[in-house]
């Protein structure tokens, strides 16, 4: 890890021509969107496309243009509340950068792409896929999908890869998001879903928020936390930065990035020492406590403090509040999960929940806060590399047989599990994978060590991208197909609580653009392998998904569009039938998991958890530091994250003017003590450099961050991209990349970067 900085720099030179042709340009409300005399044709009840909470909202539509938004007060999760992204999301529709045609790469054309007929583009795509697969084997063509798609689309993507392309290599960008939580949850509970609805936050006595910048990444959850505080809850926040919610929380633990397992081990140590544990619950409902107890014996407060950088007193206080609470809620997000030991972090957090016995009851809960629009639903139905619909395993013969039966194919013809998203990039680099289709994924901006990603994408024989705007990754494509925006299609999404909600179509696709699933089916047809991919509507897909998920853990068989609309969403698991004597879930589905006496298809009545014995697992979580720790050469920790006005790789939000005004460009955030040592003042250009790349941004000098850490938000491309610096180290189980820790050195920049004078901040 201590080698010299790699010098390959693949950032393309400033390409003002492509930006001029395809954006990002800024959209502001004008004309009909500012006219207060227009009566909308309709108000469409739907959900926000910009995070996993899926706030309900109504879109105002006039003449096939979304002209504005109106709160949907009746939707119970957010009751009309919206963050700035939700309020301004309507500006992404009817946007000047919208792709209206298929495009082919053409060095001679303006912006590097030439518009072409849709049918010809589909034909060329199918020919390229066929050529690559017949020459190099089925697995030489890979698919990258996304977790902001509707569940119906993710189902079709899985089916397309596994049944039509028969490639092992399909994965999705949830790999960069919640997979550590998913893996940790499966290991501890046997099921991957928030254990509780957010209502349970309201009644909790202690709320522990770990690695979740709720105020910026899940703003609506703020009201749940503050509402609990109004009723007397104590709020504990674990974060290397004093986020807005940490500012006035009751106890703030400024953890050193990458040391979360140590903190939770330390808290469990104190809980055991003071006997703040629920022995009866552990005895009756869990296995593995003894081994865990033995393993945390060494995590004395002193040692925990040394490793985590948190004062002993604060650790003791946290353990005492958590240990002695009557009711509690623990939630975490990417801060805990984006690590090469992300699954361990999650399991160590679950350990203190299980040791307290406070789960599966009202006001006692645990959840990960999903990040992407369909972060939950997108990871359940077969677009993960090792997965089949219903949360089934691709490696499990019974599961293969069931799904193959639903799909009407030979189970043996189903491919074996493939590799994760980053491994797909590595296989592209080594030449093992020659062709790629990506949808709802912008790997150039979102994957770590982006120089490597670019270098790999350039090696592809054929790359086809389905997108509504020309994303930074689409610029590497040979063919770009015009897909659909969230408001141009319908379907369902499963939000952070596990609630399945309805996305309603507000407008038609413009130009030659069409719903993503139609494009996929058109490709399948052009390949002559359209069997199973002849859906007429999302509803038809959902009906098949219900059957395909039936009997699985993520059982949607009892959910229908009508039931969702009637009850403001339905929580899965929601089986359509259960053995005699077992009650069916209520009209809203299974709102809370692990309730005493509850039935599930794995335990079959043996207990509330999803293992054959019905018991939850406490897993031993030995602390292992981050993959790349600081040293003399790179002495500062870099951690990355989000800002409230931008979403993921910014392909949508960097085109919305009011959101860009809000935070026009990334800044490198550092503590004044560090800044003073480096001779950097607020607003100066500062260069951060890791072994993989460098990045020059303006400094934001604030005391709201640990002095040993700098922070860069990751939504920007090119020279402003934080992922030029981040490390591609991954968790061995979840394969999540370690976005939250790498080693950098920082200096005052010699001069403003070239882009500063040439490009608008959002570009």
């Amino acid at each position, binding site marked *: 890890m201590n080698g010299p900085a790699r010098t390959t720099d693949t950032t393309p030179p400033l390409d003002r021509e492509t930006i001029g042709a395809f954006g990002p340009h800024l959209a502001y*409300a004008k004309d009909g969107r*500012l*006219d*207060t005399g227009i009566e909308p044709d309709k108000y469409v009840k739907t959900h926000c496309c910009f995070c996993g909470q899926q706030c309900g909202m109504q879109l105002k539509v006039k003449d096939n243009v979304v002209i*504005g*938004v109106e*709160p949907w*007060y009746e939707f119970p999760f957010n009751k*009309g*509340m*919206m*963050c*700035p992204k*939700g*309020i*301004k999301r309507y500006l992404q529709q009817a946007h000047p950068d919208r792709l209206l045609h298929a495009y082919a790469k053409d060095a001679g054309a303006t912006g590097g792409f030439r518009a072409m007929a849709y049918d010809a583009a589909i034909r060329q795509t199918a020919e390229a896929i066929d050529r690559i697969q017949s020459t190099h084997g089925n697995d030489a063509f890979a698919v990258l999908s996304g977790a902001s798609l509707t569940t119906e689309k993710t189902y079709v993507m899985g089916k397309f890869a596994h049944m039509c392309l028969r490639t092992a290599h399909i994965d999705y960008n949830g790999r960069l998001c919640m997979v550590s939580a998913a893996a940790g949850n499966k290991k501890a509970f046997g099921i991957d879903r928030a254990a509780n609805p957010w209502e349970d936050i309201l009644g909790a006595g202690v709320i522990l928020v770990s690695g979740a910048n709720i*105020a910026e990444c899940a*703003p609506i959850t*703020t*009201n749940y936390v*503050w*509402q609990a505080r*109004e*009723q*007397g809850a104590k709020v504990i926040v674990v974060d290397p930065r*004093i*986020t*807005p*919610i*940490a*500012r*006035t929380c009751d*106890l*703030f633990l*400024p953890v050193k990035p990458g040391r979360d397992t140590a903190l939770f081990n330390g808290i469990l140590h104190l809980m055991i020492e003071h006997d703040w544990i629920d022995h009866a619950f552990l005895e009756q409902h869990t296995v593995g406590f003894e081994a865990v107890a033995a393993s945390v014996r060494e995590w004395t407060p002193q040692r925990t*403090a040394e490793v985590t*950088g*948190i*004062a*002993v*007193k*604060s650790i003791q*206080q946290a353990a005492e509040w958590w240990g002695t609470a009557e009711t509690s809620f623990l939630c975490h997000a990417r801060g805990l999960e984006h690590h090469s030991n992300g699954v361990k972090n999650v399991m160590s957090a679950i350990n203190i929940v299980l040791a307290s016995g406070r789960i599966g009851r009202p006001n006692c809960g645990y959840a990960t806060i999903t990040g992407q629009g369909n972060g939950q639903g997108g990871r359940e139905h077969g677009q993960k590399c090792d997965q089949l619909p219903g949360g089934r395993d691709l490696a499990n013969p019974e599961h293969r047989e069931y799904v193959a039966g639903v799909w009407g194919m030979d189970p043996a013809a189903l491919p074996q599990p493939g590799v994760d998203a980053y491994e797909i990039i590595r296989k592209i680099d080594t030449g093992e994978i020659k062709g790629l289709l990506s949808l709802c994924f912008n790997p150039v901006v979102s994957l770590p060590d982006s120089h490597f990603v670019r270098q790999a994408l350039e090696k592809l024989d054929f790359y086809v991208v389905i997108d509504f705007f020309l994303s930074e990754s689409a610029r590497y494509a040979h063919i770009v197909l015009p897909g659909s925006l969230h408001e141009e299609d319908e379907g369902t999404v499963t939000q952070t609580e596990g609630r399945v909600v309805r996305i309603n179509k507000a407008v038609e696709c413009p130009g030659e653009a069409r719903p993503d699933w139609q494009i996929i089916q058109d490709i399948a047809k052009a390949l002559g392998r359209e069997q199973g991919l002849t859906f007429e509507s999302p509803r038809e897909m959902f009906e098949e998904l219900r059957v395909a998920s039936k009997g699985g853990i993520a059982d949607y068989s009892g959910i229908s569009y009508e039931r969702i609309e009637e009850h403001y969403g339905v929580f899965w698991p929601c089986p359509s039938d259960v053995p005699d004597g077992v009650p069916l879930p209520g009209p809203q589905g299974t709102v809370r998991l692990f309730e005493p006496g509850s039935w599930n298809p794995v335990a079959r009545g043996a207990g509330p958890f999803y293992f054959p014995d019905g018991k939850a697992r406490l897993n031993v979580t030995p602390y292992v530091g981050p993959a790349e720790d600081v040293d003399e050469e790179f002495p500062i920790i870099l951690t990355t994250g989000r800002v*409230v*006005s931008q979403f993921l790789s910014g392909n949508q939000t960097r085109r919305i003017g*009011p*959101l860009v005004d*809000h935070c026009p460009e990334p800044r490198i955030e550092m*503590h*004044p*003590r560090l800044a003073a040592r480096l001779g950097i003042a*607020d607003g100066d250009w500062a260069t951060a450099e890791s072994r993989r790349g460098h990045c020059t941004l303006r400094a934001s*000098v*604030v*005391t*709201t*961050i*640990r*002095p*040993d850490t700098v922070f860069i938000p990751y939504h920007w491309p090119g020279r402003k991209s934080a992922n030029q610096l981040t490390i591609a180290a991954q968790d061995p189980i979840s394969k999540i990349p370690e976005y939250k820790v790498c080693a950098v050195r920082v200096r005052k920049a010699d001069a403003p970067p070239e882009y500063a004078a040439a490009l608008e901040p959002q570009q």
Partner: protein
Amino acid sequence: MPVPDALEFFIDPGRCIGCQACIQACTECDTHKGQSMIQLDYVDRAHSTQTVPVVCLHCDSPTCAEVCPADAIKRTEDGIVQTARKPRCIACNNCVLACPFGVPKMQTKMNLMMKCDMCYDRTSVGLKPWCASACPSQALAFGTREEMARLRPHAKPVNTFQFGRQTIRTKVNIMVPRDAPTDIVDVTASMHEPTIGREILDDVFMERPDGGDA
């Protein structure tokens, strides 16, 4: 139609997370579409993320209206201090400088002061104003007093403010602790207080002199 008496506005700056939902929401209001009337400031960003959201508090006896040389600012009988009358406002800036809460905004190019009118198009038909509808932290909240008492049992709404020797009563409430010793928020008394936040220590084994957590 007047704004219903039972529905009131409640501000709790201590809840604010600075997310700007209110600013973006405000630009969707029909009475001033495209313009935000919300004042949302960092108190001292170098040291804290503390933000303060201010909408018009709608004084019973509005200083802005009294100091207006053009009689452009009117308060309707439902207690809403309306934005400046367009034909009258001469953009003298008196209201901007005199408002004790720092609310009005001057649009110099338009020769027009604009201010929050509590989304009169919405509240006058019984809807919540845009900002309080959207606010994810409910630092800006709108509803009945009973609702507030139920949701925030340890807080109470107060609508009397002290500025030096001047007492100002407003339609909009601010949330203070239920057992606070006073029903008056003395603004000038706390005027020179520094921002509220936290510090992170370099050395975790060094206890803070004031006993706060590190």
